[in-house]
C-alpha cells in the first residue's frame, strides 16, 4: 500500500517539473540581465546566454534538466555557481528545525488550550482561550515578530534578535511561526472535543463511573484527534517548505529566503530545484499525515 502511494507521487512531481519549467520561461525578467547588472553590453549578454545554454530550444533545455534530476543533480545556480542540491541540503535542516520547534510549541499549547476550553464550554477558561486564539490568528506575523524582538532581544536582552545557533536562537522565531497554528489548533481541538463529548459512548463512559479525567483525556481526546492531525499535517507541510516572513524577520537561514533570492534574481535552475524539492517534502508530509490517520482511527485503513 505504501509502495503504491509512493509510485503515485512520481506523476505528480513530473507535472510540477513541467509546469514550473514552462512558467519560468514565460515570466518577464531575463536571468542574464540580472547577472550583468546595470551596466552591460550586448556581446557580454550573448556570451552569457551561450555559456548557460539559454539559446537551446526549450525541449532540449528541459530534457537536459530532466536528465540531471533523474541522476539527482539539480544543476548549478546561474548566479552563485554553487550546486543547488547542496544549497538546499544546507538550508533544509535549518528550516526543519524551525518547523519542528514551531509545531511542538503549537501542538502542546494549542491542543492543551483546546481540551481545557472544551472541558467547560462557556466558562472563564474557555473564553480566555478563545480570546487568545482570536488574537493569534488576527495579529500579522511581521508585527508580532518585531514586537518579540523589541521585548526579548532589545529591552530585556534575554534572547538573540536574529540568526541561528543554539536553542536560544530558536525560541523567538518558533513562537512567531507557531502562533497562528496555536490559535487554529485550539479552536479545532475545542470544536472536535465538544462534538465527541456529546456523543453516546462518552455518556456510556461517564455512566459506568469513569473519572472525568479518564473520560476527557482517554476516550474523548483520542477520538477528537483526526481533524487535529489534519491541521497539524497541513501546517507542518507549509512550515517545512520554508516560512518566508519568519525567516526574513529573524534572519533565519532557511529554504524560504533561498527561494525568494532565487526568484528576485531570476535564478531559474535554483527556483526550479527549490520548487521540486518543496513538492517532494509536501507530498511526503501528506503521506505521513494519512498514515497517522490510520493510527489514530482503526476504522481508517489503506488498501
Amino acid at each position, binding site marked *: 500500500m505504501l509502495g503504491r502511494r509512493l509510485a503515485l507521487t512520481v506523476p505528480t512531481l513530473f507535472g510540477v517539473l513541467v509546469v514550473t519549467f514552462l512558467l519560468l520561461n514565460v515570466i518577464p525578467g531575463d536571468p542574464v540581465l540580472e547577472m550583468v547588472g546595470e551596466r552591460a553590453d550586448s556581446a557580454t549578454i550573448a556570451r552569457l546566454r551561450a555559456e548557460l545554454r539559454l539559446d537551446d530550444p526549450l525541449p532540449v533545455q528541459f530534457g537536459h534538466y530532466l536528465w540531471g534530476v533523474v541522476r539527482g543533480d539539480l544543476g548549478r545556480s546561474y548566479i552563485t555557481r554553487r550546486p543547488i542540491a547542496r544549497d538546499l541540503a544546507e538550508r533544509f535542516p535549518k528550516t526543519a528545525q524551525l518547523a519542528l520547534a514551531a509545531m511542538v510549541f503549537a501542538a502542546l499549547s494549542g491542543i492543551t488550550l483546546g481540551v481545557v476550553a472544551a472541558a467547560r464550554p462557556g466558562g472563564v477558561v474557555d473564553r480566555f482561550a478563545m480570546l487568545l486564539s482570536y488574537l493569534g490568528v488576527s495579529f500579522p506575523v511581521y508585527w508580532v515578530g518585531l514586537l518579540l524582538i523589541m521585548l526579548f532581544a532589545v529591552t530585556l536582552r534575554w534572547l538573540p534578535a536574529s540568526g541561528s545557533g543554539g536553542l536560544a536562537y530558536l525560541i523567538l522565531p518558533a513562537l512567531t511561526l507557531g502562533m497562528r497554528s496555536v490559535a487554529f489548533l485550539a479552536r479545532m481541538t475545542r470544536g472536535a472535543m465538544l462534538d465527541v463529548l456529546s456523543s453516546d459512548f462518552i455518556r456510556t463512559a461517564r455512566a459506568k463511573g469513569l473519572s472525568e479525567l479518564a473520560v476527557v483525556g482517554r476516550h474523548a481526546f483520542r477520538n477528537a484527534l483526526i481533524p487535529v492531525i489534519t491541521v497539524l499535517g497541513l501546517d507542518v507541510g507549509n512550515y517545512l517548505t520554508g516560512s518566508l516572513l519568519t525567516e526574513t524577520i529573524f534572519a533565519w537561514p532557511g529554504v524560504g*529566503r533561498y527561494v525568494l533570492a532565487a526568484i528576485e534574481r531570476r535564478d531559474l535552475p535554483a527556483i526550479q530545484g527549490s520548487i521540486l524539492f518543496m513538492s517532494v517534502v509536501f507530498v511526503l508530509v501528506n503521506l505521513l499525515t494519512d498514515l497517522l490517520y490510520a493510527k489514530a482511527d482503526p476504522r481508517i485503513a489503506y488498501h
Partner: protein
Amino acid sequence: MRPLALPLCLALTALVACGRDRAGATGGGLAYYESYDPRSLDPALSTDVPTGEMVTCLFDGLTQFDADGRLLPGVADRWTVERGGLRYVFHLRPGVKFHDGRPVTPADVRASFLRVLDPATTGGRAWPLLPIAGAQDYASRRASDVWGIQPLGDTAVAIELTEPLAVFPKFLAMAVAAIVPAPTAPDFGQNPVGSGPWKFVRWQHDDFLVFGRNPAYWGGAPQADTLVVRIIPEPLTQAAEFDAGRLSVVEVPFGETARWEREHPDLLVRKPGLRAVYVAMNVRRGALQDVRVRQAINYAVNVPEILRTVWSGRGVVARGAIPPALPGGDTTRRGYGYDPARARQLLSEAGYPKGLDLELWRTATNVSLARVAQAVQADLEKVGIRVTIVDREAASMREAARSGKADLALLDWWADYPDAENFLYPLFFSGNAGIGGNYSFYHDPETDSLLVRARRTLDDSARVALYRRIDERVYRGAPWLYLWFPVELWAHRPDVRGWDLALIFTGQRWTAVRRTP
C-alpha cells in the same frame, strides 16, 4: 496519545541537536552585516555590493580606494602612464604575500584578469577589464591569450589599452580586478585565498561569515582580531541587533531617522553617498521626445518637499547627475525649481494644453523609492500630466525600462567607482542606451563627443571641467526628472573606534577599526 509520540520524539531530538552554539559570535571582534548573502567570495563573480565588500576585505587590487574615495596604490606601489595613456606599467610592491604564504607575482595578476575575462567564468561583469587590448577577443574565444597584459620580470606588469582611458586605474581598484593566487581550486568562491587584510575563516550561507586578522598585511594589520559579517535582510532587525549591542555599525532605518537623531546624536555618521535617485524619461517615446515636456516635468515636481517628507530629508537636491561628493559635482547650478505655472506654460507651448498621459514604472519592493513615485504622480497631476503607476518587481521593471517600454522609470544609480565619469558615460552616452545604463535613451552627438574626449583626457582638472560642462548640457536637455543624491546615515556603537563610513563600498577595509574595552 500514541500517534503523536513519534513526531514529538523527532522534534525533541532536533531541538537538542541544534544546541551547539554558533562559531565566532561577536566577542571582542567587529560585527558587520549584509542584507543578503554575497553571490560568491570569488572576485570574478563580484557583481553585487555584498560580494564587493567581502572581496575588499579578503583581497587586494593593483590599486584601491580609501574611505573618502581617493585612489591609492594597492599591490602596485606605483605606476606610470605611457604613450599618451595607451600603456600603463604597474610596479608590484615587494614582499606582498597571499594568505597561504605564496608571493603575489605578475603572473598572478595576468592569470587573475584572464579568469575574469574567460567566458566559462560566467561572472557577467568583466567590463572593467575589457578596455585592455586583446581582451574582447579573448572573452569571445577568438584568441587564446590577452596580448595587452605583459608581465615584466618578477616585479611589474604592463597593460596596453585599445584607447586611452583616464579612469582605467580606478577600474583596477574594483573588486572584479582583485588579484587571486593562480591557479585557483574549483571551490575558490567558497574557500577564498587572498592577500587582503582579513583571512577567510568560515561562511555559513544566509547566516554569517567569519574573517580573521591577517597579521602580515602590507598595509598594516587590522586592529581587531575578527570580523563577523551577519546576513540580516530586515532593516528593523538590523537596528534591533545594533541596539542589543550585537552589531558594530548599522545604517539607520528610514522611518527611524528622527528617533535616532534624538536618541543617539553622538553615534551618527553621515556622508553624501555616491548615488543618484532619478526618474529616467525615455526621450524616444511620444510626448517625451519634446525637450519642453521633459523640462515641464522638472518644473512641476516639488523635489525639496518630496525629499523632506518621503525621504526624511536624507539627501541633497540634484541639479545634475554628478553627486556633490565627486569633483565635477555642482549643486549650486541654476536649477529648474518648483514652478507649476512655468510647467503648464511649457506644456502648452509643446502642444499639450490639455495635459497628457504617461506611465511611471517603479519597483514595489523598494518601499522608500515606491513612495517617491506616488509623490511625483501627485505633483504631475496638478499640471495636467496624468500618471499611471506601473508596479513590477525589480527584474521585470528593469527589463521593461531597458527595452524602452517605460515612459518614466523611477531608479537609483549606485557608483561602481568614485568618478564623475561613472555618472555620465554609462547614463548618457548614446552607445549605452538601454542595457548599458542609459535608460533615457538619451542621444546627443555633442554630448557623445564630449564624453569620448573626457575619457581620453589624462589631465584631471581638464577632465573634471569637461564633466562639469557635459553635466550642465545634459541637465538642460532634461532626460531625467532630477531628484536627489541620498546622504547615507549610519550609526556606530559607542565602543567602536576608528570607523569611518566609506564613500564607495570598495573603500572599507576595517583595518583601523577597534573596540575599546
